[in-house]
């Protein structure tokens, strides 16, 4: 793991994307609402798209407070999902392909570690840091939106139940799917860049769709998010079962120099 995280190629997904999504967007939006309350007028069309049931009964909730609530709880959820997706893609792409590039993989293949242990180990080695990192980002996001948002909304409003479900169920389920696919691609790729590029092109459109729908999911109910997570978990289980059955180290060696 220490080898993986020493790669400069991880700077964009691990630093820049989280900085923009977790810190930049919410800070700028909430600061803008606080400093220029009139700017909320421009958001009326957007806000009217959200049903009243989507916003809890908060006493003396202003238009700015309503906009803050909608953005923090619903709008940014989709952006936030980009964090685990990008992190997991890049960490998983680095698994086999990164080891090939650093020429450490062949030594590992000669050890008694079984084929299934190898692939499950690589998936776990990408899954654990992805989840820990995403939860860390969630803590930062929570701190920022509460710090800047409470004066606008008027009370502590974040995290909501649906965000807990998002973090505890949907993020792990989606991450595992991304990682499983990218680890498989990584096993066949010649290097990190190739694995990352192929992984990204395969994964991002699918995840983009999920991210785009996330705001809508959040509005509907926590139960629906949980059901979506369950669906992903079922796909994960089927995919992992297949991977463990078909993965063979000799197929990786065919791609070594």
């Amino acid at each position, binding site marked *: 793991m220490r*080898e993986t995280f020493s790669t400069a190629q991880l700077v964009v997904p691990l630093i820049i994307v989280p900085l923009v999504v977790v810190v930049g967007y919410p800070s700028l939006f909430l600061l803008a609402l606080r400093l220029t309350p009139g700017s909320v007028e421009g958001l009326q069309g957007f806000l009217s798209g959200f049903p009243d049931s989507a916003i809890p009964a908060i006493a003396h909730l202003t238009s700015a407070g309503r906009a803050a609530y909608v953005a923090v709880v619903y709008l940014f959820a989709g952006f936030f999902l980009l964090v685990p997706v990008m992190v997991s893609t890049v960490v998983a792409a680095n698994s086999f392909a990164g080891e090939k590039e650093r*020429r*450490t993989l062949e*030594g590992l293949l*000669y*050890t008694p570690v*079984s084929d299934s242990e190898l692939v499950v180990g690589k998936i776990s080695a990408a899954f654990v840091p992805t989840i820990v990192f995403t939860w860390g980002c969630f803590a930062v996001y929570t701190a920022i939106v509460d710090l800047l948002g409470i004066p606008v909304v008027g009370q502590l409003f974040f995290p909501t139940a649906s965000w807990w479900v998002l973090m505890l169920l949907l993020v792990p389920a989606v991450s595992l799917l991304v990682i499983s696919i990218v680890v498989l691609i990584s096993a066949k790729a010649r290097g990190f860049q190739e694995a990352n590029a192929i992984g990204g092109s395969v994964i991002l459109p699918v995840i983009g769709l999920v991210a785009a729908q996330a705001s809508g999911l959040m509005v509907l109910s926590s139960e629906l998010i949980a059901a979506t997570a369950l669906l992903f978990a079922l796909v994960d289980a089927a995919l992992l079962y297949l991977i463990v059955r078909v993965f063979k180290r000799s197929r990786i*060696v065919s791609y070594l120099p």
Partner: protein
Amino acid sequence: MGIPDEGAVEDVTDARGEMDGPAIEVGGLSRSFGPLVALDSVDLTIARGAVFGLLGPNGAGKTTTVRILNGVLDPTSVTKLEVLGHDLRLEAEAVRPQVGVQTDTNLYERLSARENLASFGRLYGMDTPSSRSRADELLEMFGLTGRGGERVERFSKGMKQKLLIARALVAHPRLVYLDEPTAGLDPEASHELMTYITRVSREAHTTFFITSHRLDEMEGVCTGVAVLDGGRIRAAGPPEQVARAAIPRVRVRVTPAAGSPMTAADLSALPGVKDVMGIDGGFAADLVEEGAVPSFVRGVVALPFDLLGVAEEPPTLQEAYLALVGNHRAPAERQAV
């Protein structure tokens, strides 16, 4: 380097008497990569406790052979593939824990030398305390104790090479693959490694499978060699046997005393002599057959010249290798695949 100071070598004979069969038995091994035939009907039998050298130019198929013999690459076809008494196609998981491999790969640069060794010990099923103590043992054996805590990225090429060899030995393997093991080592360390290999193969019946281009070293340490070229075994057997078969000459070196007036013509006149060449410090006489050696030696001694020595000069492995490889491919064809 301190390699010969490992202390008592563990006897690895097991209760099932597995020492009896060969360490490696391969028949009809072929492997192709698309149109390229990397190995073509290779047969190999390597006894337990042997130090076996697989020789061949770049692209000959040595790496492919090692990968297949470790079950990390599938052969295209094979009739027999047994390692340490197990059919590798069915029981690779029973073989791997008994095998150590050093190939042209890298260590984990951001980890320390000790962490590199201990982590591999754990991959071989050792518990954490055992893997750490084995790592310390190996660091001491290879003279790296003082650097054990340092990240490998700071190591010299020779130190990394020692560590790669140490890593192959971490789980007390019964079969060790070494790929160009002395590359990057200084002459003293190379000599100590060769001495260690000889000792461990004799005392613990550990089998060594070495690929190398250093033919002089291989000749000194190997009990058996095979020359692989173009995916085929061109010759196999003990080094001297391979050399004699490939270079069917009988040569005797004659070293006259300094200032002696001996000439090539004096030697050419003796019975059984085919050719005489002047070499540094004397003459090399090629005889018509091995049976001519005694009468030739008597004839040389009877000449009225002072001598420093008369000795048969058997063909070297290097000469045999060049003859065998040169017979099959022009130098321009010998390139990495």
